[in-house]
């Protein structure tokens, strides 16, 4: 067991170092400063009541860029190893395939969370500068976004073992960004159905991950009071469940791949 933990740790570290070396994250942070700055320009035009608008646009930028980072990092991990043929020497060692997946997953989660923290820091400074500071709910917002990276990264890694990198990015992006619309449409359709159709759609509703539940940006933009802690706990369990399911599915596929 100890040996496996060492393997996972080494794989995670190698992925972290490789990603930091590629400097992708800096571009995203630069884009964040640019995006939030563009939104803040309106504050300079003397329009009143800018606080909610600024918080809304800033959190939208964070949501978008942090999710893009997570999907992008997760989607390229295994396909790149395969195309560069660096996976062969790795798997020639006594390393379990699940540990490779887990190491990659942890690295992606850490990097995405690190990127989120930097983005949140930029956002906090930007909002404080324009006197639109966010209340204590901001910490819960960050925690839930970090939790959401679990299912997103695990899902994307699993999809990257089945689809091409481009298709993985597109599909993961669609499932993540349209989560709210998708869930709402499905729930509304359930009400209009009856019998077997309704039962099937309900089952599907509970099967699919509801990534929109991790988005606290609207409550944060309107400065609602913090949520009760059971909500964060329940969502942490929900995220862990889907991480397990997606990594399990990924491992099944990875095990059958002729690498």
């Amino acid at each position, binding site marked *: 067991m100890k040996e496996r933990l060492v393997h996972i740790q080494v794989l995670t570290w190698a992925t972290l170092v490789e990603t930091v070396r590629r400097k992708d994250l800096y571009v995203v942070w630069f884009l964040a400063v640019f995006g939030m700055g563009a939104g803040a320009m*309106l504050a300079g*035009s003397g*329009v*009143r*009541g*800018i*606080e*909610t*608008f600024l918080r809304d646009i800033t959190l939208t930028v964070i949501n978008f860029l942090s999710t893009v980072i997570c999907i992008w990092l997760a989607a390229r991990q295994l396909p790149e190893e395969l195309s560069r043929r660096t996976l062969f020497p790795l798997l020639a060692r006594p390393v379990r395939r699940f540990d490779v997946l887990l190491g990659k997953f942890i690295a992606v989660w850490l990097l995405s969370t690190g990127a989120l923290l930097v983005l949140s820091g930029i956002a906090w400074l930007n909002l404080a500068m324009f006197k639109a500071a966010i209340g204590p709910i901001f910490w819960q917002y960050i925690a*839930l976004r970090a939790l959401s990276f679990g299912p997103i990264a695990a899902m994307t890694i699993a999809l990257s073992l089945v689809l091409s990198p481009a298709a993985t990015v597109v599909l993961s992006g669609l499932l993540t960004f349209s989560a709210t619309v998708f869930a*709402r449409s499905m*729930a509304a359709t*359930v009400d209009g159905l009856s019998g077997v159709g309704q039962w099937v759609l*309900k089952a599907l*509703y*509970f099967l699919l991950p*509801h990534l*929109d*539940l*991790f*988005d*606290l940006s*609207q*409550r944060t*933009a*309107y400065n*609602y009071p913090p*949520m*009760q802690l059971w*909500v964060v706990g*329940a*969502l942490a369990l*929900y995220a862990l469940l889907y991480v397990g399911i997606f990594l399990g599915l990924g491992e099944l596929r990875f095990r059958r791949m002729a690498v």
Partner: protein
Amino acid sequence: MNERLRTRLQFAALVGCLLLLGASGSALGQYVRPNAPGDRELDGAGWEGRRLLAQLLWVKTHSVLHAGVEERDARPGEAKTRAGEFHQHGGASQQEIETPEPGHEEPGHEEPGHDEPGHGGHDEEGHVFVIPPAREDFRGVLGDLERAVKPYAGTDGKLYSKDSSQTLPFYRLMTWADPHFIQGYTVGSTFINKVGKETHAALQFLLEGERFNPNSFEIQTELGHLYLVYEHDYAAAEKHLQRAISLLPHRKLTELEDEARTDAYRWLALDYVQWDKPAEAVRFSRRARAQFGPDATLDHIIERQGKK
């Protein structure tokens, strides 16, 4: 040419292009914000995109007014089953946004004007929250989580808060995006005005709207309203309201246009009342009544001013 020199030249060319783009910024500005005023048709895919953006911002203002709580049209029967959250957007909501100060109240008259953004007046259908209450939600704990995570009403079914000033940036942006979006100007000015505390800013906003839409009777009506009620400049109010009436289109009006037309007549009649021109007020009220039938405000003016 050696490789190094070529690279430097390419770099210099790119920097030159960037500088050129920066220098031509003012020239590009006229495409973003047209200098030419008037009801000029703005065609092309770019303008379609800007109209769409303005519409999206318009929808967003509604959510902003309700502290992020999303709503949908109520289905038949939901007025009873979801009574706690069921509500209409009309006079009562307007009162919350723009509570008239005693000095500004019109005698025996409810202030005509605009309903909340995104909704026409006389909305009989009403609205309920998009997220259903726990008793109607098949999703169990997932529904509870959504109610906890998304903006949702408190346990008493009321909205968390309302702060209409937070919608102002959206009106500013939507009229930048589409300067021919009339409702953006008329409704936006109501919120900017803030019951007479920022009338000058509201007038500036409307005058900008007038510059881009000189044939809009809705903007003229709103200008007349502000000059009459908040500036007490009866001559200016008369000028704008008479212009509004002269600009009325000779076709079947939409529900919103019909309201604006009625408002124009009512405000002008009230303008004469405030200006102490009872004969003119009665004469005009009778004319207006002949145009679109009985009206409580006009009847009241005819009765009260007729005695004078």
